[in-house]
């Protein structure tokens, strides 16, 4: 096997993303860390902050080196992509550059407005959620809201932490690839998020009308919020026991139908917010000597659509050697047409995931079948293969999986 290789290391962080890429250069390798986070509802033995962060630092120190990463990339600010950066240990790691999507730029008024609205929506939803009575919709919404909260601590590390005073870049889709001295010979194609006005519109949090009233429901005891003067109302007990009103009693089915209304609203709002933040994902392709690593974060259909409709971008993602499967293998982050018609045969793919009991659709079985049809070799972070491991793959127990893509000797 060639001594020069591009490597992709997927750390097991449960339901969350954490990847370390290395590219050969004259004196060793250049390294890129993409995301480090675990979902609050993840199960599984490994977590980003507790397990992966010390592991990464140990790995970086191997051979007595000072821990250093050339570029840290955060695709978007969801907990399952950033929670690891809450760790204080990052202060000992020297970082060259930190890349984030343009929506995180503190000096961009459009981004700041979006962020504030997204953060306000998340906080307000979280508050309302805490007050709502128990319901199936509420239970399903809990994890989504927790994932979308501002994650201030982690973001502080990314904006002002690390050793070595790294340069911060806020990226948006651009025509020409990014080339920086820290990553010699590597071209980084930035495919998303776009600054297109239409795309920005999709990044707005769900309309307040979808959930605003929930706050009022929980404040319903406040008589100022009652729709009519108290004299017009009779309590349930009084009404239901008055024989004269018998024909006006609502059946149990009707009462049940009304009860279900609010539970769905909070789920709608929470899922909407989740999607909006996913939509801010950085979508990158790292290209070096014919090896292409496609890392879309959790990009949504909007970003994918503009990529697949653009001849150059479509051709580029079609040449991907390796694909980091978007959003833990869910159906909404990998267009079917991409796997079916665009992705090259016999590519390599990695799904960072741990099954969460209530999310049975993640990872999506139809997507896995589509990969199989294209002879894509797919590895899941929580269940790497024990046997029949291809020669370029190295499995380290349940800690990480390495994929190596050889380059011709220099």
């Amino acid at each position, binding site marked *: 096997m060639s001594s020069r290789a591009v490597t992709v290391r997927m750390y097991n962080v449960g339901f969350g993303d954490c990847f370390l890429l290395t590219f050969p250069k004259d004196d060793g390798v250049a390294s890129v860390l993409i995301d480090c986070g675990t979902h609050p509802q993840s199960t599984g033995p490994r977590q980003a902050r507790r397990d992966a962060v010390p592991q990464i630092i140990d790995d970086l120190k191997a051979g007595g080196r000072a821990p250093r990463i050339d570029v840290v990339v955060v695709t978007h600010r969801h907990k399952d992509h950033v929670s690891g950066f809450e760790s204080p240990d990052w202060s000992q790691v020297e970082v060259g550059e930190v890349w984030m999507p343009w929506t995180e730029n503190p000096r961009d008024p459009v981004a700041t407005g979006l962020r504030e609205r997204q953060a306000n929506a998340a906080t307000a939803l979280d508050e309302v959620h805490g007050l709502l009575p128990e319901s*199936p919709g509420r239970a*399903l*919404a809990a994890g*989504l809201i927790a994932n979308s909260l501002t994650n201030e601590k982690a973001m502080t590390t990314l904006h002002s932490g690390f050793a070595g005073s790294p340069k911060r870049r806020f990226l948006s889709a651009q025509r020409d690839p990014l080339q920086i001295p820290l990553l010699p010979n590597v071209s980084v194609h930035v495919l998303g998020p776009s600054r297109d006005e*239409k795309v920005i*519109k*999709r990044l707005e949090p*769900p*309309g*307040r*009308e*979808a959930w*605003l*009233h929930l706050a*009022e*429901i929980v404040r*319903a005891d406040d008589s100022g*919020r*009652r*729709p*009519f*003067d108290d004299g*017009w*109302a*009779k*309590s*349930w007990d009084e*009404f239901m026991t008055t024989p004269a*009103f018998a*024909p*006006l*009693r*609502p*059946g149990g*089915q*009707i*009462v049940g*139908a*009304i*009860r279900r*209304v*609010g539970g769905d*609203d909070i*789920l*709608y709002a*929470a*899922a*909407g917010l*989740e*999607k909006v933040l996913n939509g801010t994902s950085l979508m990158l392709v790292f290209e070096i000597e014919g090896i292409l690593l496609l890392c879309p974060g959790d990009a949504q259909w909007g970003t994918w659509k503009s990529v697949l409709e653009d001849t150059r971008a479509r051709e580029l993602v079609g040449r991907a050697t390796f694909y980091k499967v978007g959003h833990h293998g*869910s*159906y*909404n982050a990998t267009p*079917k047409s991409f796997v079916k018609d665009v992705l090259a045969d016999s590519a390599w793919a990695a799904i960072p995931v741990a099954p969460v009991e*209530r*999310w*049975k*659709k*993640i990872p999506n079985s139809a997507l896995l079948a589509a990969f199989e049809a294209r002879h894509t070799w797919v590895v899941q972070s929580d269940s790497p293969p024990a046997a029949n491991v291809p020669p370029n793959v190295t499995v380290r127990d349940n800690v990480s999986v390495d994929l190596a893509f050889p380059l011709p000797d220099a």
Partner: protein
Amino acid sequence: MKVARTRAYDKFTRLQQPYLNESPARRPLKIFALDPLSGQTAGNRAVVDVPNEPLAPGPIGERIKVIDYDGTLNCFYAPVNLDEPPILMQSGLEPSESDPRFHQQMVYAVAMRVLENFERALGRNLRFAKGRELRILPHAFRGANAFFDPPTNAVMFGYFSADEGQPGQNLPGQTVFSCLSHDIVAHEVTHAMVFRLREHFSEPTNPDVLAFHEAIADIVAIFQHFTFADVLRDQIQKGHGDVRAPGPLLELAKQFGHGTGRSEALRSALEPNGPNPNDYKTVMEPHARGSLLVAAVFDTFFSAYQARIVDIVRVATGGTGRLPKGDLHPDLVGLMATQAARAAQSILTMCIRAFEYLPPVDVTYGDYLRALVTADFDLFPDDEIGQRAALIEAFRLRGIYPSSVNSLAEESLVWGSARQELPPLDRSIIGNLMTNEVLGPPPGTNGNRSVAGALAEYGRTHADALQLEPEREVEIQGFHPTFRIGANGRVRVDIVAQFVQERPTSPEERAELGGLRLRSGTTVIFSERGEVRYLVAKPLPEEPVVQRGVESRSVKGIREFIEQADENDDLLLWRDTSYLDRRMLERANFAALHRSLGEEP
């Protein structure tokens, strides 16, 4: 001294002439013609009359029951007694936002008008099964929404506080009642009517099914605006004769839109950018897709209105046809308003009448166009003012073509019949059905059950010609005679019957289908002599059959549609199994509010 109301008094004062003993035919009731926000708009406080019927407090009528239960606060509001003399004397309670009894009165009145519009157009009474009367809950929950719930046959209205930040024309925090919006009430009650007429149209088997539901609901709400004479006159004056000028006539649920921070009405009959033939291929969200059909129908109305006023305008302008600048003469406005109201009623009637010509399952816009053309052609073979031509053109402009015809000529759009293959219905079936309908079932008989049995037998015997599967049970979804006045003032009697089959599915298969059943069905319109006049079939082969270059519906097509709906569902990922197994049915909840998610802006 007071004369006591005794039996003797009643006997003495009740004259023998029967007409004085008849209760009045109509009951006048006050409503907001638009909604409370439109307080300043002329004619917003309107008196409408509805068919009179005995009412109990609620009100509870024969088919409509208003239950004022508030599920959020778990309490009840005092039910109105519309027969109380002080209320009767003033044509119902005065419009008021703070009196829940007025709200009950308004939902009852608007619902009765919708019901009446359906009954008049269809030429028959719409009954509900016993214990399944239409329930209306004007304050069911706190929330910016309203919906029809098929399992309970109930329409639920929400109330909410106007957006504190962007209240529009409301006061910040003001309570907005969706039940005080004529449009929202008419919209939701229409969902109930469509469900009553075509139960299986709440099973989304193609992108048009739910959109059709939304479109009909909006069409009824908008065309009912034209029955409010003062609003109409005011708008004709303001629009200088043009009923397309933006304004309350064509807007839906203005207060609701403003209250939810939109700064505009919820929807409108007009397309902001004119018709676009691509929309039919790309717009999938049911309300937005429904708006395409609404716009097509409204275009047809506008052509009809223009054709109706052209002579009036000529007379008023000394033959030039060009209206002078400035205000129009009030008499001219009155004449134009009359024509607008007639055109609106005629289009609304046409839209509803077409239901008799729709298949029992899996409706598409193309089917609806064919039903509209057939229904209108059937009663009025001459298209005097070019209404049908305008209709076909309006659909064409929006890229809506029926999949099974090779031209948009009227004669290819009219549904065909299978006269040669299908023998006439037995005279005894028709006889029994007519007797039951007109005189009521004779004592000692089982009513219409034997008619249903005989029709089912007919369906089984002639399954092949009905494009049903011969080996399978045939269910009679509905059958009834219709009595209508056609051209030449003749009474037309037809018998409409719907034959439905269901292909058995395993629980696993049903979960895959999101709870949908695999149904095929055929609607047959028989003449009074039992001959087949029209046959509207929706068979369901496994694979699509290509016919004249167009694919038929198929199980495969339904699966593809489910897949597409799944892809557009942002929530699917986060749902539990109990939802997933029923997801197609859950998607069919008829909420007034656009879900702001999953729409491409």
